[in-house]
Structures are given as C-alpha cells and as structure tokens.
C-alpha cells in the first residue's frame, strides 16, 4: 500500500495502536508509523479501555502489556511513553494532554515538553505541586532557543482536579505578572468531565497572554474566591473577561 494511504489510515487510529502495533506489522508500516504528522496531537489522558483515570499507562494496562511483549520493555511507564511520542513528533507536536499522574518526577516530564515541543499550541496539564507549577512558563512562553514569531499563539489548557484549583491560579499569577494578561472566554471543546473538572486555557503569544477560563467548576466553597481572582486579573490587565461557571 502507498505510504500516503497508510499514513491517512493511521491518522484515524488511536495513538496507542500507532505506537504499539502498527510499526511491527511490516517494513512499510514501520516507516509510515514514524511519520511525524501522526504525532502532532498527543492525547495522553490517563483513561482508556473504559478504565479509570490513571489506568492507561500502568504496566499492566493493555498498552503496558503490549510494550512489554512486543518491544521487550521491562518496565512500562508513562515517562517512557511520553519520550517516545515526543521523539516521534520530532518537535512538531501541537497538542498535548497529560494524564493526572506524571510519574515520580513530573519536573522531568515538564522540562522534556518545554524543550522538545516548541510548537505546542495547546496543553492540558494535571494538577501540579507549586514547585512544578513554576516550570509552566517555560512551556507557555516561547522557549528560549526558538525564534518567537509574533503571530504564534500557544494555547495552554490547565486542567486540574478540584482541590488544586487555587494552587494553580496562584502559580499562574506569575505568568500574569510577567506578561500583559487578557482574560477571555474561549469557545471550548468540552473537556472530559470525569477527571478534568476545571480547565484554564492560556493562549500565549510572544507578549500578551490570553487566559481563557471555561468549564470552571471549582468546589462550591471556593467558587467565589476563584471568580474574584479571575476578575482581579481581568481588571489588572485585560480586554475582556467571561467566566462561565
């Protein structure tokens, strides 16, 4: 089969199949499965196979078992899988959604993403500790070694579980101070409700950062604080603001 046709077929296949099965079928499939265009949208949310939110990357998950038996991978981990995806994308990854659990050292994964994915436009992140949160500007703002084009917009969707919503806002105030911030509501593709109850989208151009809040559903007792924070930011540096709660 034509490589073009194969790539088109693989584009319609879940990422896990392109990673674990397609390259082992035969030589031409192996070549086609390495096409960087297949690795631009990296949907790595943890769910899958109908399981809970974190089962997809466990060593005993179908994906983990597949890697163990077919590639001789002894200890399947999300970190390794992320590395594979990022390497295959060859710097061209545009969208990335990360699972709730990044492994023992989320900092490594965040650094990898900020260094190797300069083209990212949209990132969905899990709740992070304050220290890891501080690394996010590297991902949002143009990485140091790539020329920042003025019309480039990075969109960063920050997804968190309910309890961490305020931590994340606190972390982001760093970004807000660093650049002029604008808050706008984005017409959003609805985030999966199960794990990602709160999503903040940050669209960052070289200078202004647009923060879009949608699907904002914090725990009830925090709601007023979240809203006041968002409005504060909107007043501080903004053109428009909408908070669908």
């Amino acid at each position, binding site marked *: 089969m034509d490589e073009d046709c194969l790539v088109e077929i693989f584009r*319609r296949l879940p990422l896990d199949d392109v990673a674990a099965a397609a390259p082992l*079928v035969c030589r031409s499939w192996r070549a086609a499965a390495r096409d960087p265009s297949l690795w631009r949208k990296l949907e790595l949310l943890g769910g899958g196979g109908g399981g809970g939110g974190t089962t997809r990357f466990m060593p005993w998950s179908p994906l983990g078992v597949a890697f163990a038996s077919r590639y001789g*991978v002894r200890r399947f981990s999300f970190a390794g899988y992320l590395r594979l995806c990022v390497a295959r994308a060859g710097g061209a990854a545009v969208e990335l959604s990360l699972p709730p659990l990044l492994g023992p050292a989320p900092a490594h994964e965040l650094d990898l993403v900020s260094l190797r994915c300069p083209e990212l436009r949209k990132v969905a992140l899990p709740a992070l500790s304050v220290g890891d949160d501080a690394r996010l500007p590297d991902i949002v703002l143009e990485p140091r070694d790539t020329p920042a084009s003025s019309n480039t917009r990075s969109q960063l969707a920050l997804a968190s579980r309910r309890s961490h919503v305020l931590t994340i806002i606190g972390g982001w105030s760093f970004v807000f101070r660093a650049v002029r911030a604008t808050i706008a509501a984005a017409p959003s593709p609805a985030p999966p409700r199960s794990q990602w109850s709160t999503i903040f989208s940050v669209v960052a151009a070289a200078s202004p950062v647009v923060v879009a809040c949608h699907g904002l559903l914090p725990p009830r007792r925090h709601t007023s604080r979240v809203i006041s924070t968002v409005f504060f930011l909107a007043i501080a540096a903004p053109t428009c603001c909408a908070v669908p709660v």
Partner: protein
Amino acid sequence: MAAGKPVVMVTLVSSDGQSFQLLEEAALLSAMVRDTIQIGQGRGPAGIPIRNITGQTLSMVVVYCNKHYTAAAAADGDDAADEEKKVANKKQLREWDEQFINLEQDKLYDILVAANNLGIDGLVDLCCWRFADMMKGKSASEIRVKLGIRDDFTSEQRAQIEKDSPWVWSRTT
C-alpha cells in the same frame, strides 16, 4: 436542481474497457475528473480513460459518486427545510456509507487506491476509517492475519526493533 439546466453526462472508461456514464456534476466529486474537464477534455464521446482502475472497482466508485451527488443536490434543493430533516438525511447518508463500505479488505483496498487516484476525498476518508476500524486494538500479528500482510522483517531487523525500543529514551536515573 435548477430547472432548465442542461444535463451533461460524462463517460468514465475503466482500464479493462468498461464505460460508465454519470452526471458530470456527480463525476466532479473527483478532483482528477475536475482537472480533466477544466483543461477542456473528457466531454467527448471517448470519455475519460481511468488508468489502473478496473470496471468492478470503478462501478463501486460511480455508485458512491451518484449517491453523494444526489444527497447533496437534495440538501441544496430544500435549503429552507427544517433542521430535523437535514439531520435525518445526514444520518441516512452516513448509514448508507457504512453499508457501502462494509467490504472485504481486497475490494476495500482497490477502492481506496482508486479513490486516492481519482482524488475523491470523501471516499478516501471513508475507506481509511474502515481500515482503521479493522486494525483498532489489534496486535501486529492479528493485523497481519486479518489483512493478509506478509511479515517482511529480517531477524536482524527484529532484533534492531527491540534495541530501538522507545525506552532508550527513557531516563536512566
């Protein structure tokens, strides 16, 4: 369809000499036919020769084009029609597509190649989805059996694959 519009037919001729007549507008779903007609060819009685595509495959492609052309024309015809009807029509067309593409993989492959050569995006998309559905969640050997693909890796290459495994990128710390 607008009344009084002249009905123009084109003829497509398969590689084994079978000819198929269809409305020009239906044939225009194919980028290749569009280009041919644009440069002023293909309207004559000789028709448009389609190389590398047999009559059997081309007949299926023609059925697809006719169906999608009539569906689009019907949707255009009653643009004031209510949303509900439009949604129902779309759903009907999708079901028709599913039935149509429910083929064995040899035929499916022929149609995919034909659609790709003729530049019929909708049909390429449909075939690709069908193939992807066949592969989803299967291991490499299951895919090989299902699609009748020969394993052409040499044993050295196999060993290389294991060595190349993604975990070479993995942290060693």
